[in-house]
Protein backbone atom coordinates (compact mmCIF):
# COMPACT_ATOMS: atom_id res chain seq x y z
CA UNK A 1 0.00 0.00 0.00
CA UNK A 2 1.11 3.56 -0.65
CA UNK A 3 1.89 5.83 2.33
CA UNK A 4 -1.14 7.94 1.37
CA UNK A 5 -3.44 4.99 1.95
CA UNK A 6 -1.88 4.39 5.37
CA UNK A 7 -2.45 8.01 6.39
CA UNK A 8 -6.07 7.81 5.26
CA UNK A 9 -6.54 4.57 7.22
CA UNK A 10 -4.94 6.10 10.31
CA UNK A 11 -7.08 9.20 9.96
CA UNK A 12 -10.28 7.14 9.56
CA UNK A 13 -9.35 5.16 12.68
CA UNK A 14 -8.99 8.47 14.55
CA UNK A 15 -12.32 9.75 13.20
CA UNK A 16 -14.14 6.54 14.11
CA UNK A 17 -12.75 6.53 17.63
CA UNK A 18 -13.81 10.17 18.11
CA UNK A 19 -17.37 9.35 17.02
CA UNK A 20 -17.62 6.17 19.09
CA UNK A 21 -15.95 7.94 22.03
CA UNK A 22 -18.57 10.71 21.98
CA UNK A 23 -21.43 8.21 22.12
CA UNK A 24 -19.83 6.06 24.84
CA UNK A 25 -18.72 8.95 27.08
CA UNK A 26 -22.16 10.55 27.04
CA UNK A 27 -23.72 7.15 27.75
CA UNK A 28 -21.47 6.71 30.80
CA UNK A 29 -21.74 10.27 32.13
CA UNK A 30 -25.41 10.90 31.34
CA UNK A 31 -27.97 11.00 34.10
CA UNK A 32 -31.04 8.74 34.22
CA UNK A 33 -34.54 9.58 35.25
CA UNK A 34 -37.98 8.17 34.73
CA UNK A 35 -41.33 9.88 34.95
CA UNK A 36 -44.84 9.43 33.69
CA UNK A 37 -44.34 10.90 30.22
CA UNK A 38 -40.67 10.02 29.75
CA UNK A 39 -41.28 7.18 27.33
CA UNK A 40 -43.69 9.00 25.03
CA UNK A 41 -42.84 10.60 21.70
CA UNK A 42 -42.70 14.40 21.83
CA UNK A 43 -45.68 15.93 20.10
CA UNK A 44 -45.78 19.40 21.58
CA UNK A 45 -47.35 18.21 24.83
CA UNK A 46 -50.39 16.61 23.21
CA UNK A 47 -51.03 12.90 23.90
CA UNK A 48 -49.64 10.96 20.97
CA UNK A 49 -51.90 9.04 18.58
CA UNK A 50 -50.61 6.09 16.57
CA UNK A 51 -47.06 5.55 15.40
CA UNK A 52 -45.03 7.64 12.99
CA UNK A 53 -44.96 4.89 10.38
CA UNK A 54 -47.30 6.96 8.26
CA UNK A 55 -47.85 7.35 4.56
CA UNK A 56 -46.08 10.40 3.24
CA UNK A 57 -46.28 12.50 0.13
CA UNK A 58 -45.26 10.71 -3.09
CA UNK A 59 -43.50 13.95 -4.08
CA UNK A 60 -40.49 12.83 -2.05
CA UNK A 61 -40.34 9.65 -4.10
CA UNK A 62 -40.46 11.72 -7.28
CA UNK A 63 -37.51 13.81 -6.12
CA UNK A 64 -35.57 10.65 -5.39
CA UNK A 65 -36.22 9.44 -8.96
CA UNK A 66 -35.15 12.78 -10.43
CA UNK A 67 -31.99 12.51 -8.34
CA UNK A 68 -31.18 9.06 -9.70
CA UNK A 69 -31.68 10.25 -13.29
CA UNK A 70 -29.66 13.45 -13.02
CA UNK A 71 -26.93 12.18 -10.74
CA UNK A 72 -26.22 9.27 -13.08
CA UNK A 73 -26.00 11.66 -16.00
CA UNK A 74 -23.78 13.91 -13.92
CA UNK A 75 -21.36 11.02 -13.51
CA UNK A 76 -20.89 10.88 -17.29
CA UNK A 77 -20.29 14.63 -17.36
CA UNK A 78 -17.69 14.19 -14.59
CA UNK A 79 -15.68 11.72 -16.62
CA UNK A 80 -15.84 13.97 -19.69
CA UNK A 81 -14.88 17.09 -17.71
CA UNK A 82 -11.67 15.60 -16.35
CA UNK A 83 -10.59 14.40 -19.82
CA UNK A 84 -11.76 17.54 -21.64
CA UNK A 85 -8.42 18.44 -23.27
CA UNK A 86 -7.59 14.88 -24.35
CA UNK A 87 -11.01 14.40 -25.98
CA UNK A 88 -10.91 17.73 -27.82
CA UNK A 89 -13.76 19.06 -29.98
CA UNK A 90 -15.09 15.61 -30.86
CA UNK A 91 -15.64 14.90 -27.18
CA UNK A 92 -17.15 18.35 -26.76
CA UNK A 93 -19.68 17.70 -29.51
CA UNK A 94 -20.65 14.37 -27.96
CA UNK A 95 -21.01 15.97 -24.54
CA UNK A 96 -23.11 18.75 -26.07
CA UNK A 97 -25.54 16.18 -27.49
CA UNK A 98 -25.62 14.44 -24.12
CA UNK A 99 -26.31 17.65 -22.21
CA UNK A 100 -28.94 18.50 -24.85
CA UNK A 101 -30.77 15.27 -24.03
CA UNK A 102 -30.45 16.12 -20.35
CA UNK A 103 -31.95 19.57 -20.93
CA UNK A 104 -34.76 18.04 -23.01
CA UNK A 105 -35.57 15.73 -20.08
CA UNK A 106 -35.50 18.68 -17.72
CA UNK A 107 -37.84 20.72 -19.95
CA UNK A 108 -40.20 17.74 -20.20
CA UNK A 109 -40.29 17.29 -16.42
CA UNK A 110 -40.77 21.00 -15.96
CA UNK A 111 -43.74 21.04 -18.40
CA UNK A 112 -45.25 17.96 -16.76
CA UNK A 113 -45.16 19.72 -13.41
CA UNK A 114 -42.74 17.24 -11.83
CA UNK A 115 -40.66 20.13 -10.50
CA UNK A 116 -43.59 21.96 -8.90
CA UNK A 117 -44.06 21.18 -5.25
CA UNK A 118 -47.63 21.44 -4.00
CA UNK A 119 -50.64 21.73 -6.32
CA UNK A 120 -50.21 19.88 -9.62
CA UNK A 121 -50.13 22.27 -12.56
CA UNK A 122 -50.22 19.62 -15.29
CA UNK A 123 -51.88 20.92 -18.42
CA UNK A 124 -54.79 19.31 -20.31
CA UNK A 125 -56.17 17.44 -17.36
CA UNK A 126 -59.91 17.60 -16.92
CA UNK A 127 -59.82 16.60 -13.24
CA UNK A 128 -57.18 19.20 -12.32
CA UNK A 129 -58.62 22.04 -10.23
CA UNK A 130 -59.18 25.19 -12.22
CA UNK A 131 -57.61 28.53 -11.30
CA UNK A 132 -60.81 29.72 -9.58
CA UNK A 133 -61.36 26.70 -7.35
CA UNK A 134 -57.76 26.66 -6.28
CA UNK A 135 -58.00 30.23 -4.98
Amino acid at each position, binding site marked *: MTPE*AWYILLYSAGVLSVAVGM*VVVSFVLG*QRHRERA*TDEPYESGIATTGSARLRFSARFYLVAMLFVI*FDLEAVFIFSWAVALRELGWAGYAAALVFIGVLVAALVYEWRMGALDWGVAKRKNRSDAPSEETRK
Partner: protein
Amino acid sequence: MREIVFHLLVVVCVLGGTLSMAGALIWLERRLLALWQDRYGPNRVGPFGLFQPVADAIKIFTKEDWIPPFADRAVFVAAPAVIVVTVLMSFAVVPFAPGVWVADLNVGLLFLFGMSSLGAYSLILAGWASNNKYSLIGGLRAAAQTISYEVFMGLSLMGVVMLAGSFSLRAIVEAQQGVWFCVTQFPALVVFLIAGLAETHRLPFDMPEAESELVAGFHSEYSGMKFGMFFVGEYLAITLLSALATVLFFGGWLGPVLPPLVWFVLKTGALICGIILLRASLPRLRFDQLMSLGWKILLPVALLNIVVTGAIALLGK
Protein backbone atom coordinates in the same frame (compact mmCIF):
# COMPACT_ATOMS: atom_id res chain seq x y z
CA MET B 1 11.60 9.17 8.81
CA ARG B 2 11.17 12.92 9.36
CA GLU B 3 8.54 12.97 6.67
CA ILE B 4 6.56 10.22 8.36
CA VAL B 5 6.63 12.01 11.72
CA PHE B 6 5.56 15.24 10.02
CA HIS B 7 2.68 13.50 8.33
CA LEU B 8 1.54 11.80 11.52
CA LEU B 9 1.58 15.20 13.18
CA VAL B 10 -0.55 16.59 10.35
CA VAL B 11 -3.08 13.77 10.77
CA VAL B 12 -3.40 14.50 14.50
CA CYS B 13 -3.57 18.27 13.95
CA VAL B 14 -6.26 18.00 11.26
CA LEU B 15 -8.43 15.89 13.54
CA GLY B 16 -7.84 18.04 16.62
CA GLY B 17 -8.00 21.29 14.66
CA THR B 18 -11.31 20.58 12.95
CA LEU B 19 -12.94 19.43 16.19
CA SER B 20 -11.79 22.48 18.13
CA MET B 21 -12.87 24.61 15.18
CA ALA B 22 -16.38 23.23 15.61
CA GLY B 23 -16.26 24.25 19.28
CA ALA B 24 -14.88 27.68 18.53
CA LEU B 25 -17.55 28.23 15.87
CA ILE B 26 -20.32 27.76 18.43
CA TRP B 27 -18.85 30.69 20.34
CA LEU B 28 -18.08 32.74 17.22
CA GLU B 29 -21.55 32.32 15.78
CA ARG B 30 -23.27 33.34 19.00
CA ARG B 31 -21.00 36.36 19.42
CA LEU B 32 -21.42 37.50 15.82
CA LEU B 33 -25.20 37.03 15.83
CA ALA B 34 -25.29 39.03 19.08
CA LEU B 35 -23.17 41.76 17.50
CA TRP B 36 -25.50 42.06 14.52
CA GLN B 37 -28.56 41.99 16.76
CA ASP B 38 -27.14 44.67 19.06
CA ARG B 39 -26.71 42.55 22.21
CA TYR B 40 -23.79 40.98 24.07
CA GLY B 41 -23.98 37.23 23.49
CA PRO B 42 -22.06 34.84 25.74
CA ASN B 43 -19.49 36.96 27.67
CA ARG B 44 -19.38 35.46 31.17
CA VAL B 45 -17.33 32.25 30.97
CA GLY B 46 -13.68 33.26 30.62
CA PRO B 47 -12.38 36.30 28.67
CA PHE B 48 -15.01 37.40 26.09
CA GLY B 49 -16.94 34.21 26.93
CA LEU B 50 -14.27 32.17 25.15
CA PHE B 51 -14.75 29.16 27.43
CA GLN B 52 -18.48 28.96 26.70
CA PRO B 53 -18.02 25.96 24.34
CA VAL B 54 -16.13 24.12 27.11
CA ALA B 55 -18.94 24.73 29.57
CA ASP B 56 -21.46 23.67 26.92
CA ALA B 57 -19.50 20.48 26.26
CA ILE B 58 -19.34 19.51 29.94
CA LYS B 59 -23.04 20.18 30.30
CA ILE B 60 -24.10 18.29 27.19
CA PHE B 61 -21.95 15.25 28.06
CA THR B 62 -23.64 14.94 31.47
CA LYS B 63 -27.16 15.30 30.06
CA GLU B 64 -29.43 12.29 29.92
CA ASP B 65 -28.54 10.01 27.03
CA TRP B 66 -32.08 8.96 26.27
CA ILE B 67 -32.94 6.29 23.72
CA PRO B 68 -36.70 6.26 23.16
CA PRO B 69 -38.29 2.82 23.74
CA PHE B 70 -40.36 3.29 20.56
CA ALA B 71 -37.31 4.05 18.41
CA ASP B 72 -35.19 1.75 16.29
CA ARG B 73 -32.33 1.54 18.79
CA ALA B 74 -29.32 0.61 16.66
CA VAL B 75 -30.13 3.08 13.87
CA PHE B 76 -31.04 5.78 16.38
CA VAL B 77 -27.58 5.57 17.97
CA ALA B 78 -25.69 5.20 14.68
CA ALA B 79 -27.32 8.14 12.85
CA PRO B 80 -25.58 11.02 14.67
CA ALA B 81 -22.24 9.22 14.47
CA VAL B 82 -22.61 8.96 10.68
CA ILE B 83 -22.70 12.73 10.14
CA VAL B 84 -19.65 13.36 12.34
CA VAL B 85 -17.69 10.59 10.61
CA THR B 86 -18.54 11.63 7.05
CA VAL B 87 -17.81 15.32 7.56
CA LEU B 88 -14.55 14.63 9.40
CA MET B 89 -13.50 12.16 6.70
CA SER B 90 -14.03 14.86 4.07
CA PHE B 91 -11.25 16.90 5.67
CA ALA B 92 -8.83 14.10 4.77
CA VAL B 93 -8.47 15.40 1.20
CA VAL B 94 -8.45 19.15 1.89
CA PRO B 95 -5.02 20.69 1.16
CA PHE B 96 -4.35 23.26 3.90
CA ALA B 97 -0.92 24.34 2.62
CA PRO B 98 1.75 22.77 0.35
CA GLY B 99 2.43 19.34 1.87
CA VAL B 100 -0.03 19.85 4.73
CA TRP B 101 -2.78 17.36 3.97
CA VAL B 102 -3.78 13.94 5.21
CA ALA B 103 -3.78 12.53 1.69
CA ASP B 104 -3.59 14.00 -1.80
CA LEU B 105 -5.95 11.66 -3.63
CA ASN B 106 -6.16 11.98 -7.41
CA VAL B 107 -9.93 11.43 -7.02
CA GLY B 108 -10.17 13.96 -4.16
CA LEU B 109 -13.28 15.73 -5.42
CA LEU B 110 -15.10 12.44 -6.06
CA PHE B 111 -14.20 11.35 -2.53
CA LEU B 112 -15.82 14.54 -1.24
CA PHE B 113 -18.98 13.96 -3.26
CA GLY B 114 -19.14 10.41 -1.92
CA MET B 115 -18.78 11.55 1.67
CA SER B 116 -21.42 14.23 1.33
CA SER B 117 -23.80 11.64 -0.19
CA LEU B 118 -23.21 9.33 2.76
CA GLY B 119 -23.88 12.26 5.09
CA ALA B 120 -27.46 12.40 3.77
CA TYR B 121 -28.05 8.99 5.37
CA SER B 122 -27.51 10.46 8.81
CA LEU B 123 -30.49 12.80 8.61
CA ILE B 124 -32.93 10.45 6.93
CA LEU B 125 -32.02 7.57 9.26
CA ALA B 126 -32.28 9.82 12.32
CA GLY B 127 -35.70 11.04 11.22
CA TRP B 128 -36.92 7.55 10.44
CA ALA B 129 -35.48 5.77 13.50
CA SER B 130 -36.92 8.33 15.94
CA ASN B 131 -40.44 7.11 15.14
CA ASN B 132 -41.79 10.58 15.78
CA LYS B 133 -44.00 12.42 13.30
CA TYR B 134 -42.02 15.65 13.38
CA SER B 135 -38.81 13.72 12.93
CA LEU B 136 -40.21 11.77 10.00
CA ILE B 137 -41.20 14.94 8.13
CA GLY B 138 -37.86 16.54 8.95
CA GLY B 139 -35.95 13.49 7.78
CA LEU B 140 -37.88 13.32 4.51
CA ARG B 141 -37.33 16.99 3.81
CA ALA B 142 -33.64 16.55 4.60
CA ALA B 143 -33.40 13.63 2.19
CA ALA B 144 -35.15 15.44 -0.66
CA GLN B 145 -33.13 18.60 -0.10
CA THR B 146 -29.73 16.95 0.22
CA ILE B 147 -30.01 14.63 -2.75
CA SER B 148 -31.34 17.38 -5.01
CA TYR B 149 -28.62 19.86 -4.13
CA GLU B 150 -25.95 17.21 -4.42
CA VAL B 151 -26.62 17.07 -8.18
CA PHE B 152 -26.18 20.84 -8.61
CA MET B 153 -23.13 20.89 -6.38
CA GLY B 154 -21.42 18.19 -8.44
CA LEU B 155 -22.31 19.80 -11.75
CA SER B 156 -21.26 23.29 -10.63
CA LEU B 157 -17.75 22.07 -9.85
CA MET B 158 -17.20 20.53 -13.27
CA GLY B 159 -16.15 23.89 -14.71
CA VAL B 160 -13.38 24.02 -12.12
CA VAL B 161 -12.36 20.45 -12.95
CA MET B 162 -12.21 21.31 -16.68
CA LEU B 163 -9.94 24.29 -16.10
CA ALA B 164 -7.68 22.42 -13.66
CA GLY B 165 -7.82 19.15 -15.61
CA SER B 166 -7.89 17.08 -12.42
CA PHE B 167 -10.02 15.95 -9.51
CA SER B 168 -7.11 16.40 -7.13
CA LEU B 169 -7.65 19.39 -4.83
CA ARG B 170 -3.91 20.11 -4.79
CA ALA B 171 -3.87 20.34 -8.59
CA ILE B 172 -6.93 22.61 -8.48
CA VAL B 173 -5.19 25.03 -6.11
CA GLU B 174 -2.04 25.00 -8.24
CA ALA B 175 -4.10 25.74 -11.36
CA GLN B 176 -5.14 29.03 -9.74
CA GLN B 177 -1.61 30.51 -9.74
CA GLY B 178 -2.69 33.14 -12.29
CA VAL B 179 -6.35 33.94 -11.74
CA TRP B 180 -8.53 32.53 -8.98
CA PHE B 181 -11.48 30.48 -10.18
CA CYS B 182 -13.89 32.81 -8.35
CA VAL B 183 -13.32 35.21 -11.27
CA THR B 184 -13.45 32.78 -14.20
CA GLN B 185 -16.04 30.48 -12.62
CA PHE B 186 -18.27 33.01 -10.90
CA PRO B 187 -21.63 31.32 -11.73
CA ALA B 188 -20.17 28.04 -10.46
CA LEU B 189 -19.16 29.73 -7.19
CA VAL B 190 -22.69 31.03 -6.63
CA VAL B 191 -24.28 27.64 -7.39
CA PHE B 192 -21.70 25.87 -5.22
CA LEU B 193 -22.26 28.11 -2.21
CA ILE B 194 -26.06 27.87 -2.41
CA ALA B 195 -25.93 24.09 -2.89
CA GLY B 196 -23.39 23.75 -0.09
CA LEU B 197 -25.58 25.71 2.31
CA ALA B 198 -28.57 23.59 1.35
CA GLU B 199 -26.55 20.40 1.90
CA THR B 200 -25.45 21.47 5.34
CA HIS B 201 -29.11 22.51 5.92
CA ARG B 202 -28.01 25.84 7.34
CA LEU B 203 -30.28 28.83 7.49
CA PRO B 204 -31.86 30.02 5.19
CA PHE B 205 -32.20 26.38 4.08
CA ASP B 206 -32.94 24.72 7.43
CA MET B 207 -36.39 23.37 6.55
CA PRO B 208 -35.48 19.87 7.89
CA GLU B 209 -35.35 21.30 11.40
CA ALA B 210 -37.56 24.36 11.01
CA GLU B 211 -38.35 24.94 14.67
CA SER B 212 -41.44 27.06 14.06
CA GLU B 213 -43.23 24.11 12.42
CA LEU B 214 -41.35 20.88 13.21
CA VAL B 215 -40.05 21.59 16.77
CA ALA B 216 -36.54 20.40 15.87
CA GLY B 217 -37.25 18.26 12.82
CA PHE B 218 -35.19 15.14 12.43
CA HIS B 219 -33.50 15.50 15.83
CA SER B 220 -36.62 16.20 17.94
CA GLU B 221 -36.14 13.01 19.96
CA TYR B 222 -32.38 13.36 20.41
CA SER B 223 -30.85 14.46 23.69
CA GLY B 224 -27.44 14.75 25.28
CA MET B 225 -24.35 14.28 23.18
CA LYS B 226 -26.26 12.49 20.43
CA PHE B 227 -27.99 15.81 19.79
CA GLY B 228 -24.61 17.45 20.30
CA MET B 229 -23.17 15.34 17.48
CA PHE B 230 -25.69 16.74 15.01
CA PHE B 231 -24.72 20.17 16.28
CA VAL B 232 -20.99 19.48 15.95
CA GLY B 233 -21.62 17.91 12.54
CA GLU B 234 -23.34 21.08 11.36
CA TYR B 235 -20.49 23.33 12.48
CA LEU B 236 -17.94 20.97 10.97
CA ALA B 237 -19.92 21.09 7.74
CA ILE B 238 -19.80 24.90 7.72
CA THR B 239 -16.04 24.76 8.18
CA LEU B 240 -15.77 22.17 5.44
CA LEU B 241 -17.91 24.22 3.05
CA SER B 242 -15.78 27.32 3.66
CA ALA B 243 -12.54 25.37 3.33
CA LEU B 244 -13.75 23.83 0.06
CA ALA B 245 -14.85 27.16 -1.37
CA THR B 246 -11.41 28.50 -0.46
CA VAL B 247 -9.64 25.60 -2.16
CA LEU B 248 -11.83 25.46 -5.26
CA PHE B 249 -12.49 29.14 -5.93
CA PHE B 250 -10.29 31.42 -3.81
CA GLY B 251 -6.87 30.00 -4.54
CA GLY B 252 -6.49 27.89 -1.40
CA TRP B 253 -3.16 28.66 0.24
CA LEU B 254 -2.02 31.06 -2.54
CA GLY B 255 -1.31 34.65 -1.56
CA PRO B 256 1.56 37.14 -1.20
CA VAL B 257 3.83 37.82 1.83
CA LEU B 258 2.05 35.77 4.53
CA PRO B 259 2.77 32.03 4.90
CA PRO B 260 0.42 29.69 2.94
CA LEU B 261 -1.34 28.23 5.98
CA VAL B 262 -2.20 31.72 7.26
CA TRP B 263 -3.75 32.62 3.90
CA PHE B 264 -5.82 29.46 3.98
CA VAL B 265 -7.08 30.14 7.51
CA LEU B 266 -7.82 33.80 6.72
CA LYS B 267 -9.84 33.00 3.60
CA THR B 268 -11.74 30.17 5.30
CA GLY B 269 -12.45 32.36 8.33
CA ALA B 270 -13.81 35.15 6.17
CA LEU B 271 -16.14 32.72 4.39
CA ILE B 272 -17.35 31.28 7.71
CA CYS B 273 -18.22 34.80 8.93
CA GLY B 274 -20.06 35.38 5.65
CA ILE B 275 -22.12 32.24 6.19
CA ILE B 276 -23.00 33.37 9.72
CA LEU B 277 -23.99 36.77 8.34
CA LEU B 278 -26.34 34.98 5.92
CA ARG B 279 -28.00 33.33 8.91
CA ALA B 280 -28.32 36.68 10.64
CA SER B 281 -29.89 38.44 7.65
CA LEU B 282 -32.03 36.01 5.65
CA PRO B 283 -35.40 34.47 6.54
CA ARG B 284 -36.06 30.79 5.99
CA LEU B 285 -37.33 29.75 2.56
CA ARG B 286 -40.45 27.67 1.94
CA PHE B 287 -39.83 24.08 0.91
CA ASP B 288 -41.41 24.42 -2.54
CA GLN B 289 -39.35 27.57 -3.15
CA LEU B 290 -36.22 25.64 -2.25
CA MET B 291 -37.00 22.81 -4.66
CA SER B 292 -37.91 25.07 -7.56
CA LEU B 293 -34.86 27.28 -6.95
CA GLY B 294 -32.69 24.20 -7.29
CA TRP B 295 -34.24 22.41 -10.24
CA LYS B 296 -35.39 25.42 -12.25
CA ILE B 297 -32.52 27.88 -11.74
CA LEU B 298 -29.39 26.26 -10.33
CA LEU B 299 -29.46 23.17 -12.57
CA PRO B 300 -29.76 25.11 -15.88
CA VAL B 301 -27.12 27.61 -14.70
CA ALA B 302 -24.72 24.80 -13.79
CA LEU B 303 -25.26 23.07 -17.17
CA LEU B 304 -24.80 26.32 -19.09
CA ASN B 305 -21.62 26.98 -17.15
CA ILE B 306 -20.27 23.57 -18.12
CA VAL B 307 -21.01 24.09 -21.83
CA VAL B 308 -19.48 27.59 -21.95
CA THR B 309 -16.43 26.68 -19.84
CA GLY B 310 -15.74 23.61 -21.97
CA ALA B 311 -15.79 25.66 -25.17
CA ILE B 312 -13.55 28.40 -23.74
CA ALA B 313 -11.09 25.87 -22.29
CA LEU B 314 -10.84 24.11 -25.66
CA LEU B 315 -10.47 27.37 -27.60
CA GLY B 316 -7.66 28.53 -25.34
CA LYS B 317 -5.82 25.22 -25.56
